[in-house]
């Protein structure tokens, strides 16, 4: 094929071949370096280590796990812990952020002022510092587990985290009973325990992301023109009807895409839990990395999982976005 300098398509073809060639050379060089280095240092490679016994203990796990289990189980525990924080955080930050976003456009000057102060304060401080501060407050300032703050026998709050009563199935009528948390000889028994690490991570991520969600919600509400509200009022819709039937459907179109970004940020920021020792995926992967020395594989696992979570979240939110997006003929 003859290259024609004077034709734009001809030049475009040349540029593309050059670009792809350069990238391929760069990648090849990096891979080659890695292989040479790994051989020189005697580093083994491959994912076979996933089936070896992990040999480390994980502080909290939603599924049964002990240190004899293989590495892939440890990674699974880490993934579940990450998902747990992300899901709880996304739900809570949406609720709180919506409330604060509405507060920022409220008629009430006090509510407006407080909500503005909240967003400015939480948005402008690194989330890592916030997580660390909540964790310190949690483990150093909260009451001792011997003398916890409590709501009756249902909720206990102490340095050891939050203990909640949960309903459990029993084999006797009425088949449903409350499992109440109890402090027995140095540990909590029964009920549901939220560890201080989980509590601090979720609280920190929720409060930080809520500030951004509030800005998104405020932007959405302000994007609906005044005339819409006035038109709704002239149709004698009530305030609640106006909000639900006129303002929200239009605001949602503006809100959903940036909200998706905030959810993705929250999920990715949950990796900072490693700084306070919450056993999330990054924490488990770095422990495994230090034990096995397989840096490439462990970091590949982290990246693949987060990539998958990000794509999953954006797929769900895109489906929702299609539902709220403007329906044109």
């Amino acid at each position, binding site marked *: 094929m003859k290259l024609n300098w004077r034709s734009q398509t001809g030049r475009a073809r040349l*540029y593309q071949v050059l670009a792809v060639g350069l990238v391929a050379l760069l990648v090849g060089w990096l891979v080659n370096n890695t292989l040479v280095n790994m051989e020189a240092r005697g580093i083994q490679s491959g994912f076979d280590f996933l089936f070896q016994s992990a040999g480390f203990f994980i502080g909290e796990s939603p599924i049964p796990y002990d240190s004899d289990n293989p590495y892939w189980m440890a990674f699974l525990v880490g993934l579940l812990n990450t998902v747990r924080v992300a899901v709880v955080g996304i739900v809570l930050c949406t609720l709180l952020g919506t409330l604060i976003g509405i507060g920022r456009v409220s008629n009430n000057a006090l509510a407006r002022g*407080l909500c503005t102060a909240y967003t400015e304060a939480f948005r402008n401080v690194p989330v890592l510092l916030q997580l660390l501060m909540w964790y310190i407050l949690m483990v*150093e300032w909260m009451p001792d587990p011997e003398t916890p703050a409590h709501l009756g026998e249902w909720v206990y709050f102490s340095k050891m985290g939050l203990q909640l009563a949960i309903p459990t199935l029993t084999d006797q009528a009425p088949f449903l009973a409350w499992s109440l948390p109890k402090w027995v000889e140095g540990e909590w028994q029964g009920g549901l325990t939220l560890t201080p690490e989980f509590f601090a991570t979720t609280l920190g991520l929720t409060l930080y992301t809520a500030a951004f969600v509030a800005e998104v919600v405020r932007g959405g509400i302000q994007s609906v023109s005044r005339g819409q509200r006035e038109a709704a009022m002239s149709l004698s819709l009530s305030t609640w009807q106006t909000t639900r039937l006129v303002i929200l459907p239009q605001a949602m179109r503006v809100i959903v895409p940036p909200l998706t970004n905030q959810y993705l940020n929250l999920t990715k920021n949950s990796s900072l839990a490693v700084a306070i020792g919450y056993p999330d995926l990054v924490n488990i992967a770095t422990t495994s990395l230090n034990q096995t020395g397989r840096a490439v594989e462990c*970091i590949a696992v982290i*990246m693949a999982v987060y990539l998958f979570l990000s794509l999953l979240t954006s797929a769900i939110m895109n489906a929702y976005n299609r539902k709220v997006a403007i329906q044109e003929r």
Partner: protein
Amino acid sequence: MSAPFVPIPPRPAPRGSQGWMAWMRQQLFGSPVDSAITVLLLAALMMFLPQFLDWAWLQAVFARNADQCQAARGLGACWGVVGEKYRLIIFGRYPFDEQWRPLVATLVMLAMLVISCIRYCWSKHLITAWVLTLLVFFGLMSGSVLGISLGLTPVASDQWGGLPLTLMLATLSIVMAFPLAILIALGRRSPMPAIRTLCITFVELVRGVPLISVLFMASFMFPLLMPSGTNPDVLLRVIVGITLFAAAYLAEIVRGGLQAIPQGQYEAAATLGLSYWQTQIRVILPQALAHVVPGIMNNFIAIFKDTSLVSIVSLYELSGSMKLAIEGDANWRPFKIEAYLFITLIYFVFCFAMSRYSLWVERQLARGHAR
């Protein structure tokens, strides 16, 4: 003969619509629901604010005395920890006697940042000034410029820390990420499929993973990726990591601006016989970037905050040096929260200033559209 027209002076507004009483009635007690919200919020404030003031000010210890702080522990804050440790927090492990150097370097850098924000100074000389500033900064910090010793004690980069490091990481990553981001954004909108695919892959890959994993990669995997024998400085590796990360996000923002430019602008430029790069640099980018100033500034703020993550891969920037300062000293270790609040304030001042500046730039640029 008609009498000249004398308008009747306007009647004063009803007394009920003026003054603080009316303001309160309107803004705080407009409706029963509003009143209920106001009362609830006031009650909450009355509950927490006095407690906080009591802790942060009335019962607080301002003296640099660990025993007094111990005595007031749990009752009042110990701000003495800031007075005692501020040099270690702000300059990290930099040799104590040489700390005037990071101080001067930071001030020069800050001055340059402020100058770059003033519209009057926006010119080509700014680039020269920045190159000089960076030379001065690195010269002062390390003791030599481009291999030429300045007669100062050399200080290795693993001893740099605190605020100078935070500023340097943020500024360098932003400066390097910006041109890269523009190239990637242009590539993503290019009609050439191979280049477009490369750019999309890079952006989506990087945006899908957390920064901490990129930093882990920079600190654990980078040595493996380089030819054996070379071992690039950890600082350099981290800067490369943050730059690539920031560039992916910035590229998406720039792309948003590019999409807002109507096709007619490209056609008009083509009619004038401008080449691709002339079109982009003289016609498209100035308009596109002006559209996305808020997004770019938000990204800058995000990078500034994200530099705190390098403390996880053991570089002692502001938050890392704070931990180093407090955790190394058993006397002051119980007063971590106060030290945290101190650096929180530093971060807040920088980020808040940047967000206000972004609002100002937005207004400046909107002037062209206002009629």
